[in-house]
């Protein structure tokens, strides 16, 4: 039931003869990925192809006075130079609101907004031409925070809003507002023996996927375009791309290229429309690849947030009430801010029982970089704050911080602030118990047999800043709650086309979905599910494209549940059809065909008693069975716009962390020694992948705890560190051992009982590290990431 691993896997040669649900089968794309042959979106190539280049705004907020492309057009090797005037149809796109210009017109609203496009025969030619485009700006004051956004005389980032959220916001620079009121927090506060308040700041995190935004658009003879891109959701892209090209959706044929990580950053459109516009204009294939600098402007980031909390408790540690306000900076365009606000508010008090709450979350329009989806989606920021509050409360009460959490931990049957009952296992106290029970790693691991310290084991690492001086250890805990799947009444579904046929005497299944394989191992489990359901050995995974129905997004931890569920569902229908054929053919030979529960196993039709009736090959012969069906999770409801009440979520995921850190308290440098995680995964469809997801999510949480932040100048709203030199993500020397302990408590509503796993570990990792640093230093630390300045009083 529980698994733990950091050592060499014992069973490394997997048993390929089975490979069904629950086994650690190996990735079907593994060989291609280790030989360099896996074709990522930046690896696409076509005869006669051109290179697309974007010219981006150098200022954050300005009216565009003029754009002069004449010099650029004169550059030899240039095939097209386009501005918004050249766009063929709709000028705006967007996932929730269509507020994002394909190319800026009228004004630019953030630093790095696309203004013009070039296609040329070599990337350098395209760059030189783009540099010759003259754009005259008349700069406007920048809106950068809640105060400047909501001032009565504030310039409106978007003047004429017509979106559905506009009706209930208190200022046009607020994208969305979601209050949640339950019980009576003011009254409950009177029962509190202790009240703690805090203000917290969460920095802007970048997904920092390694594969840059890129792809290839090929004009087709029918006037349409074939588009090879890396995205999290093909059909959502398609819905946004087609109107901007003035084409019907069937003329925009999208095929998924290899995806070099996503983490939410590919849920919105990046270069898809731009490359297509150039391809249609030049009638040549166009390749676009953002470099790392451009990538920082080419996708949305995690919302930075300000969070204001008040927690109350009785002397014995029972929470009386929580009041909070969460301000999320959505930047210049809406992206998925509305949904992020919904998550932040509904998950704002964490996995605890609190009957009396007063919650408000808002998302702002500003001139900062647009923010949208990133792993943890609104729940990450809240978790950082409520877990800091729980530690503060424990200190105030003189209680052990883990005990305080366990005392207030939610369980199955607990009612959320939204009034929704948590109706499947919620082992919050148990997860905390598990991480706490684990033995602590040995102290002073930098001491070697020789005389000198191993700096690789010390804060500062190879930089040789300490040989043990100033180093203090701290331990911290955190736990979090994340919703799984798309919430608030969204019609969330996935589609699977399953085909079974006989090839060379063997029954073979083909799985065709539009699901994005971003690295998580979806393709691995798709085959596992087909094997389990259809009893075949060989499963082909068809490339994801728009020739099959939508799979929904690879986000919100939903794909194993949703596309996994769709595959299971379609396989069940296929199985019934196969059995039906069998009954027609062989039913008269054996009574079991009519009487027994029949399964497909090991290439055969077998009874539940284990008796083989026929091979699938004999049943099918030259018949092909193919089914394409949609699969939905149970419906959800919108949150009431005044009270926030409603059964808004599908499922919850829980993870807990214990962080052990060592801090060089004099230099303010941190080394995380161990980051243990316990998580309920419902059902581990592929244990090896489960652990990989948890370790990866944990590490992204570590990054934002101690180093990751996009720094935006508050005076100019310009990004100051758009590079991997100054936006730092953890290296292998920054990442500790990450022991993983997972529970499998099935969710009865979900296929196989699965629970989304990718996001929860990103939530609790950050506050656990912060708590450990606080324990080591005694400092309050209300902002993440923690900079050395904050630890040394040198801000």
């Amino acid at each position: 039931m529980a698994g733990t691993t950091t050592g060499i896997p014992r069973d490394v040669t997997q048993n390929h003869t089975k490979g069904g649900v629950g086994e650690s089968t190996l990735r079907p794309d593994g060989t291609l990925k280790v030989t360099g042959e896996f074709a990522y979106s930046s690896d696409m190539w076509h005869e006669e192809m051109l290179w697309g280049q974007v010219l981006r705004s150098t200022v954050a907020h300005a009216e565009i006075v003029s754009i002069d492309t004449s010099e650029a057009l004169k550059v030899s090797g240039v095939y097209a130079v386009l501005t918004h005037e050249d766009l063929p149809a709709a000028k705006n796109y967007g996932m929730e609101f269509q507020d994002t210009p394909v190319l800026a017109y009228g004004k630019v609203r953030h630093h790095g907004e696309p203004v013009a496009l070039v296609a040329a025969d070599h990337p350098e030619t395209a760059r030189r031409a783009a540099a010759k485009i003259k754009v005259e700006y008349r700069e406007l004051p920048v809106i950068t925070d809640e105060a400047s956004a909501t001032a009565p005389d504030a310039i409106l980032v978007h003047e004429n809003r017509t979106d559905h959220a506009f009706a209930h916001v208190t200022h046009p620079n607020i994208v969305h507002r979601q209050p949640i009121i339950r019980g009576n927090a003011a009254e409950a506060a009177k029962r509190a023996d202790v009240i703690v308040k805090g203000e917290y700041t969460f920095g802007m995190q970048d997904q920092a996927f390694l594969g840059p935004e890129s792809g290839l658009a090929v004009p087709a003879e029918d006037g349409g375009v074939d588009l090879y891109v890396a995205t999290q959701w093909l059909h959502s892209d398609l819905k946004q791309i087609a109107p901007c090209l003035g084409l019907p959706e069937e003329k925009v044929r999208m095929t998924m290229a290899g995806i070099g990580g996503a983490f939410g950053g590919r849920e919105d459109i990046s270069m898809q429309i731009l490359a297509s516009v150039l391809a249609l204009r030049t009638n040549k294939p166009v390749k676009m690849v953002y470099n790392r600098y451009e990538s920082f402007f080419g996708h949305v980031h995690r919302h930075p947030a300000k969070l204001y909390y008040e927690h109350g408790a009785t002397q014995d540690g029972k929470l009386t009430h929580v009041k909070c306000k969460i301000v999320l900076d959505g930047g210049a365009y809406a992206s998925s801010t509305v949904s992020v606000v919904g998550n932040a508010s509904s998950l704002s008090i964490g996995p605890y029982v609190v009957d009396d709450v007063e919650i408000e979350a808002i998302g702002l329009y500003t001139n900062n970089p647009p923010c949208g989806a990133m792993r943890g989606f609104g729940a990450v920021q809240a978790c950082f704050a409520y877990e800091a509050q729980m530690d503060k409360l424990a200190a105030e009460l003189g209680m052990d911080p883990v005990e305080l959490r366990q005392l207030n931990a939610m369980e199955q049957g607990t009612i959320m602030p939204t009034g929704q009952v948590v109706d499947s296992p919620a082992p919050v106290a148990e997860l905390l118990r598990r991480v706490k029970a684990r033995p602590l790693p040995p102290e002073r691991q930098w001491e070697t047999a020789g005389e000198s310290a191993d700096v690789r084991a010390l804060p500062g690492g190879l930089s040789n800043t300490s040989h043990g001086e100033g180093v203090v250890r701290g331990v911290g805990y955190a736990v979090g709650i994340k919703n799984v799947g798309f919430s608030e009444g969204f019609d969330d579904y996935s589609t699977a086309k399953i085909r079974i046929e006989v090839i060379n005497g063997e029954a073979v299944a083909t799985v065709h979905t539009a699901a994005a394989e971003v690295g998580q191992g979806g393709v691995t489990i798709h085959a596992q599910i087909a094997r389990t359901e259809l009893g075949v050995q060989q499963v082909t995974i068809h490339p994801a494209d728009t020739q099959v129905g939508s799979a929904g997004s690879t986000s919100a931890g939903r794909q194993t549940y949703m596309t996994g569920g769709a595959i299971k569902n379609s396989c069940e229908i296929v199985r019934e059809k196969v059995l039906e054929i069998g009954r027609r053919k062989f039913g008269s030979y054996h009574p079991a065909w009519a009487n027994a529960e029949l399964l497909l196993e090991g290439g055969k039709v077998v009874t539940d008693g284990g008796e083989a009736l026929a091979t699938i090959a004999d049943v099918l012969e030259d018949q092909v069975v193919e089914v394409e069906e949609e699969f939905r999770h149970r419906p959800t409801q919108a949150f009431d716009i005044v009270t926030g009440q409603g059964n808004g979520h599908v499922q919850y995921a829980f993870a807990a962390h214990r962080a052990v850190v060592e801090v060089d308290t004099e230099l303010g440098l941190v080394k995380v020694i161990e980051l243990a995680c316990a998580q309920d995964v419902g059902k581990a469809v592929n244990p090896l992948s489960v652990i990989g997801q948890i370790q990866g999510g944990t590490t992204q949480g570590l990054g934002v705890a101690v180093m990751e932040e996009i720094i935006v100048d508050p005076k100019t709203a310009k990004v100051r560190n758009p590079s991997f030199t100054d936006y730092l993500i953890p290296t292998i020397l920054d990442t500790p051992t990450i022991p993983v302990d997972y529970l499998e408590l099935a969710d009865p509503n979900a296929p196989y009982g699965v629970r989304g796993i990718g996001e929860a570990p990103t939530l609790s990792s950050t506050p656990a590290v912060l708590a450990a640093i606080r324990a080591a230093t005694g400092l309050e630390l209300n902002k993440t990431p923690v900079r050395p300045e904050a630890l040394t009083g040198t801000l």
Partner: protein
Amino acid sequence: MDFLRPASWEEALAAKAEHPTAVPIAGGTDVMVEINFDHRRPEYLLDLNRIELLREWEVGEANVRLGASVPYTQIMENLRTELPGLALASHTVASPQIRNRGGVGGNLGTASPAGDAHPALLAAGAEVEVESVRGNRFIPIDEFYTGVKRNALQPDELIKTVHIKKADGPQQYSKVGTRNAMVIAVCAFGLALHPETRTVRTGIGSAAPTPIRAKEAEAFLNAALEEGGFWDNGKIITPSIAKQFADLCSAAANPIDDVRGTAKYRRHAVGIMARRQLGWTWEQYRGAGRTLEGAA
């Protein structure tokens, strides 16, 4: 853009004389970043990879003659005894891949205050041998850095070797970055004890417009060590001397606030590094028979 590929040092000097704006490229770890990100479009790139002598080093009586392109990996593996400070500094440079390509000549040519080698060169004492078709000259390291990313090179000159004093005592080097590997210095500090002359030298990186020495701190410590007979009696340096030295090192820094760190933090961190390194080097000096190699 033209790509010049001289096969010999003489050809390189001739090319540089003919095209003084040519940008020399050896490891490429600075120049190629600027080209990849469109920050620089030199008319000529002058490739120095084919020039063998730039990748050679020679250990002499008093000095190490280090070719400008000797990769950091070679320095940290082969010159730990002779150049312990520079070997430690080399180990902090970026990543193994970068250390396999980059060399001290690139740090000097770029003359960024954040270059990792500078504090170690300043602390050890060095001269930069530069050459042009007009002849060669030696620039003392103290006179080499002339401004932010500016150095004492003439347009027709190339960096040939660096003559670095062989260690006659313990040396240390540290840099602060907000990651445990592969990080650009927020600030850096190097310290060398020179028992033969009974002096100490320092180097500060990334905490002033150019790499600098903390000369007042050196003078103070030289006097304090002399006064207390420390070089002879090998006693532990008193905390008050160490603190005064650290404070003077901090005071020598003239840093700015930027995206990597605040000026206040840099000044603070320089002081901490100075105090710790004084402790480490002095312990090494006191400990009889202990190696002069850096601890890392």
